[in-house]
Structures are given as C-alpha cells and as structure tokens.
C-alpha cells in the first residue's frame, strides 16, 4: 500500500472544468462535497449538486 505525499504533474491537460457542470459526491472520511465543490468552482465549473456519503 503506497500513499502519495506529493503533487504529481502528469495528465492534467485533458480535462477543462471551465464552464462545465459538475456533481460533487463526497465522503465523510474522505473529501467532503463542500470541499470538492470549492475546488471545482475555482477551476471555473458550475456545481449543480453536492452530496455526501457515509459508509458506517
């Protein structure tokens, strides 16, 4: 099991979130929807829906 401790730079050019409509599905013990939505908005996306899940 390997955990990433640093940013990686490959592959970032294929998706352009500018003007895209986004659904953010977060998780309580992962990244929550509000955090995903903030990131998506900062990339120019419109967030249509924020939902969270809990597995326990």
């Amino acid at each position, binding site marked *: 099991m390997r955990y*990433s401790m640093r940013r990686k730079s490959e*592959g*970032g050019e294929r998706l352009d979130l500018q003007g895209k409509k986004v659904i953010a599905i977060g998780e309580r013990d*992962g*990244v929550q929807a509000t*955090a995903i939505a903030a*990131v*998506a908005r900062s990339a120019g996306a419109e967030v249509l829906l924020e939902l969270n899940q809990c597995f326990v």
Partner: protein
Amino acid sequence: MILGAAEPAYVEMMAETVTAGDPTYTGPLAGVSLGLPVYHVTEPEVREKADASIYQDQIGLSEVAMQTDDIWQSIRKVRERTLGS
C-alpha cells in the same frame, strides 16, 4: 462528476455506476449507462485546473491521508474501459 471517497475499491464501484451502470445491480442505475466523465478530486486533471491555494486548503490534508496512487489507478481503469479515454 467529481468524487471524494477515500477507498480505491469504492471509487472504482462508484465510477463504474455513473459511467457503465451499477455493477452490483442493486440500485436505480442498474443497467443504466450514464456515461458521465468521472474524476477523483485528487487527480491531476482536477487539481491542476483548480486554484492552488483553494486546493491546498480544501484537499491538502486528505490527499496526504489517501492512497492516491491506488485511487487514480482504479478510476482511470474505469474511464478507459467505459468512456474510452
């Protein structure tokens, strides 16, 4: 669709559900192919388009805690199979 779950196996199942259809055939998306482009919030495709300080504030800590390599591998596999990208 952008996901934030921490568990690679779950990310894979969720990605499959919103692209090809529910692989467990237990929910409303059983047999329904939405074909939505699906990414994990930690993937470079999302991160590099986001404002760096907002990303660091919102995701930075989670990113350290998650097995991002495994998550990326799981979700890319699904995208390649179902969306051809």
